[in-house]
């Protein structure tokens, strides 16, 4: 906050990316000599604010998941017949034995899809770099790769859902099912939204309209995309790896 407070201001019109042409700084030099205006892009600022708000959203979802899972396991181990009945008998036995829901996960598989999503962050940032350098071909390649990797991740997600479902974890029957599908489903919805944006960019690129003057658009989509990736980093560790 203080940094903001100290930076003298600027941006007169609302055209966000007017980064540097903002009337420079108006003095104020209390803090380590950063003479600046807030010469930020409105859109980028808005995106970061939005991502900040998403932190609270996913925080709540992850917390809900952890809490629900803990309650589910506790009751299962205690022998609550209604909870035991909420999943197939074989699974219940496994869970009780392990004291966690670990047995249902296919860690190698999920590690793979986590890797894929991480990879897509790389391609995303390369796409941004390409577009800011007006490298049309690379732009298309990397955008396409990102969308593809994202879609692969989603395919994996769908596959995992079907596996879970076949194992007998249903959305409506057990607390664990509700929590798991909601958390990962929400993340999946975010990925899907990102893929749609990437495809739109790709269309633009193919119509020759994605040049370096649009680099910020790509960067914004990228920010969103990386954020969704980060969320998965959290989910992967907290949900899958830590029992």
């Amino acid at each position, binding site marked *: 906050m203080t940094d903001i407070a100290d930076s003298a201001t600027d941006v007169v019109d609302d055209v966000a990316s007017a980064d540097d042409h903002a009337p420079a700084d108006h003095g104020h030099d209390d803090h380590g000599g950063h003479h600046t205006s807030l010469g930020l892009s409105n859109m980028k600022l808005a995106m970061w604010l939005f991502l900040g708000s998403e932190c609270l959203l996913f925080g709540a979802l992850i917390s809900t998941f952890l809490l629900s899972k803990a309650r589910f396991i*506790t*009751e299962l*181990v*205690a*022998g*609550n*017949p*209604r909870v035991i009945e909420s999943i197939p008998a074989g699974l219940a036995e496994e869970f009780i034995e392990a004291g966690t829901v670990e047995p249902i996960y296919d860690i190698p598989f999920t590690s793979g899809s986590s890797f894929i999503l991480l990879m897509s962050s790389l391609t995303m940032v390369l796409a941004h770099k390409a577009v800011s350098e007006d490298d049309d071909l690379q732009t298309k390649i990397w955008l396409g790769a990102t969308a593809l990797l994202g879609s692969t991740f989603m395919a994996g997600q769908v596959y995992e859902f079907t596996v879970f479902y076949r194992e007998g974890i249903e959305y409506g029957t057990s607390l664990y099912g509700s929590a798991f599908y909601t958390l990962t489903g929400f993340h999946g919805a975010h990925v899907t939204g990102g893929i749609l944006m990437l495809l739109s960019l790709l269309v633009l690129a193919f119509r020759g309209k994605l040049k370096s003057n649009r680099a910020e658009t790509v960067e914004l989509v990228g920010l969103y995309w990386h954020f969704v990736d980060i969320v998965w980093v959290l989910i992967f560790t907290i949900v899958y790896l830590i029992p």
Partner: protein
Amino acid sequence: MSTTKTRKRSFMPRTFVSRALPVAGAALVLSACADDKPLNTFEPRGPRAQSLYDLMFDSGTWYVMGIVFVLVTFGGIFVAIKNRVDPATYDPEDLPVQTHGNITLEVAWTILPAVVLAIISVFVVRTIFELEEPNEPGELDVMVIGQQWWWEYRYDVDGDGFFTDGNGDGVVDEADQELPLEIALDPDDVVTATEMVIPAGEQVDLILTSRDVIHSFWIPRLNGKRDTVPGRWHTWSLEADEPGKYTGWCTEYCGLSHARMRMSVIALDDAEFDAWLANQQQQAEVPSDPEAAAGREIFANQCVSCHVIDDGEFEYPENFAETVPLVSHAAPNLTHFATRSTYAGGIFGSYAGPGTDPDDDALDASVYNQLSELSQNPDSPDDYRWNTAELKRWVANAPGQKAMASDVNPDTGLGRGMLPFPQLTDEELDQVVAYLATLD
């Protein structure tokens, strides 16, 4: 009832003068209007409620509030009046001194309230932990179960805890508490509803939960409130200095008839309490009087799908007995119904007579145990009488008397509220009520 309203004080006694100091105008109004208010938080009748009361007075909270209130209110009004100018004749160039602020002042009025609050919070935190102190081993524990819209109480009479070994692992442990209520509960315990009878002068510990939604258990003159949350066990406690009736109200919004979910605590002296408890442990008798016997017959046909009367004879529906052996599930246990002065969430009185208004606290604890005997003479206006008319209305059409969902779960055959019984004739109703009157 006991008319001596002595206060037990846990902190340094206040002099009369300082008590009467009119610092907090509101507080005065409150204590001045304190009569005839059965729920009044300013009339503590037990040490817990007293310590809450003291917290506000002895640690000076009300006074601090009063002082800040007076300063800001009268300070604000005073400044506004003193400094006002007439806009019609005011010369805009006649500016006051343009002060911009004063660091010393700012620091002062940041630190001063902080210090005051820090001091107060010491008292508060101490009281918070005091409230959690459990009673001595061997003193009474009662389980309180809220449900829409009445309270069930279980007394751990035999001292073997409230739970059974529900998961069959050979020990009664915390895991059993995780089990659904009707599986985990110990069927040996005494089960009553609506009115909690406790020994006076003894700290009774409560363990609270709920069968459906969140309720809150509150007897204002004995202690603050605590929520009963389904799936959780909370602890709380009550202690009454003197025998008497202390009314309360469910204070967490719990749906349709939340306003009709009341309750009371009847504190008895030790001997009377023991007598009461001994009586509650008895089974009900199968009545010999023909009218009551006919009533019992009707009850066996119509009512045992929900209610329990433990007389060793009733046959309960199969699934009922499986899950809830002789324990009320969805409806109050009526085994000793006639020993209760109120019913249906404490909104109706089972007896008419002096002090039996369900919302009043005037019922004399010394007659409580004998209500059913005192009610023998139906004609004397000063005497206690079985409130037949009201009970008949209740049995005939409970949802008409108290808003409730009265549906039956097709899977379990258990209802969520009481059904209306339009099929019962007036005579049959008389018989049922006569039967209920024998349940003492």
